[in-house]
């Protein structure tokens, strides 16, 4: 399941109008979609919210990958639905809360699916976040696919030695994870040590304010996307007011 999530969220270079946008605009689109999802309080509003998410996802040719992320969130969604139902929220209210959760996941995923770790770094630096924090965060994002690959290979290696992860009761199953988690953690620590040494060898931290090779600059397509996003966002929220009265 984690593998499906990492694969779904992993950035892949694609040449679409959404991918070409300035990362700040992509973040704004994501925030706008997030707010629409958050403010949706009934099924018809949620339908609008999902429609609003599907349009940029389709333009980014990322519907299938978003679907992967959604299929992972489905497990949590079912859990949320059952909990709400158990606590007496009723079928309709529980379904609304569950779908809202899924819309929130989809809206935030869209940003990660269409934004490279490099672009993520530019945005965080534009927000003037501390350089070390930005580097640590972006490196963590970059290393997720690497760790997932490690995890797959470790599981394969241990299964080849007779380890059956799905065998036994809950305690046994947890214990079965030890031969997987130890090599995973050790490899991650070794890799982080090597990365730190490599970064220092390449001058990381040598100057307090390093120059940047790339600076974010809005192009005409970004202004167009910005206007469309604001217009669509305002219209949707206005329609929500109308929908809520009906």
């Amino acid at each position, binding site marked *: 399941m984690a593998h499906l999530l990492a694969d779904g969220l992993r950035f892949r270079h694609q040449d679409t109008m959404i991918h070409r946008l300035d990362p700040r605009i992509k973040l704004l689109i994501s925030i706008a979609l997030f707010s629409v999802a958050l403010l949706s309080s009934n099924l018809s509003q949620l339908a609008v919210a999902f429609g609003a998410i599907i349009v940029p996802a389709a333009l980014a040719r990322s519907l299938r990958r978003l679907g992967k992320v959604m299929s992972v969130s489905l497990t949590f969604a079912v859990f949320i639905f059952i909990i709400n139902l158990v606590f007496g929220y009723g079928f309709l209210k529980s379904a609304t809360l569950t779908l809202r959760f899924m819309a929130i996941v989809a809206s935030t995923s869209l940003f990660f699916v269409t934004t490279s770790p490099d672009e993520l770094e530019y945005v965080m630096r534009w927000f003037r976040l501390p350089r070390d924090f930005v580097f640590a965060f972006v490196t963590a994002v970059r290393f997720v696919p690497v760790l997932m690959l490690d995890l797959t290979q470790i599981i394969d290696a241990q299964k*080849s030695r007779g380890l*059956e992860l799905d065998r036994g009761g809950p305690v046994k199953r947890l214990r079965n994870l030890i031969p997987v988690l130890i090599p995973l953690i050790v490899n991650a620590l070794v890799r982080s040590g090597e990365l730190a040494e490599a970064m220092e060898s390449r001058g990381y931290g040598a100057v307090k304010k390093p120059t940047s090779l790339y600076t974010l600059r809005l192009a005409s397509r970004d202004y167009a996307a910005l206007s469309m996003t604001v217009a669509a966002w305002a219209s949707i929220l206005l329609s929500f007011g109308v929908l809520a009265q009906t």
Partner: protein
Amino acid sequence: MVALDDVSLEVDKGEVLAIVGGNGAGKTTLLKHLNGLLKPTSGSVKVFGKETKEQSVAELSRKIGLVFQNSDHQLFSETAESEVLFGLKNFGFSEADAVRRAGEVFSYFGLDSLRQRAPLTLSGGEKKRLCIAAVMAWNPEVLVLDEPTVGQDYLSKGRILDTIRQLVAAEKTVLVVSHDLEFLWPLDARTVVMMGGKVVADGDSQTVFSDSPLLEGAGLKQPQLVTISKLFGRSPSFRDVSDAANWLSRR
């Protein structure tokens, strides 16, 4: 994405098979089909006459011992001994039998002095030999080595080669996947060349390794001893350096 396509391959009992190919040729994907880590979506993979689809990874691994490329993906125990015992316990060997078998493989692979060492503190060559020993402890019928020479120095490669020869002498079926042709050449094994999920050549090492265009097409480089033999018009090619030196000194 197509992972493998048109592979057709049979391996006899007691045979040593070298599978070579450049990156992305499908070698590792093929190996993972042997112990059921991957199951074919079309076509058929049979191990000892039985479809892998009908067997679990654990069942197949009892017969097919797979040693992965990266030793650090396998080692996790506190001592080398417990690392060897791990597989034996998984396969249901009794405590006494497991300890006896562990003792045997440590002696067989010359690893006795490392028995109480932490696996993660071993050298690359020692880790690799420990991984092979850990698999051989349950005595699988077939040993599969995936890129055994990656990250190994010259001496370690020699030791791995000796280990394979020992297993061959013990009439084990051994499959070695590698793009290190210099390492494979002295083995004198049946050699299969893979490219884009297809078997593009299958024959004795002399015939396959003498075909430079074939090797280059598969992203491989001919072993130096074969190239030198060609330059001197010597056939069959020199199998090792001393063979070449003796021949040259006689001329």
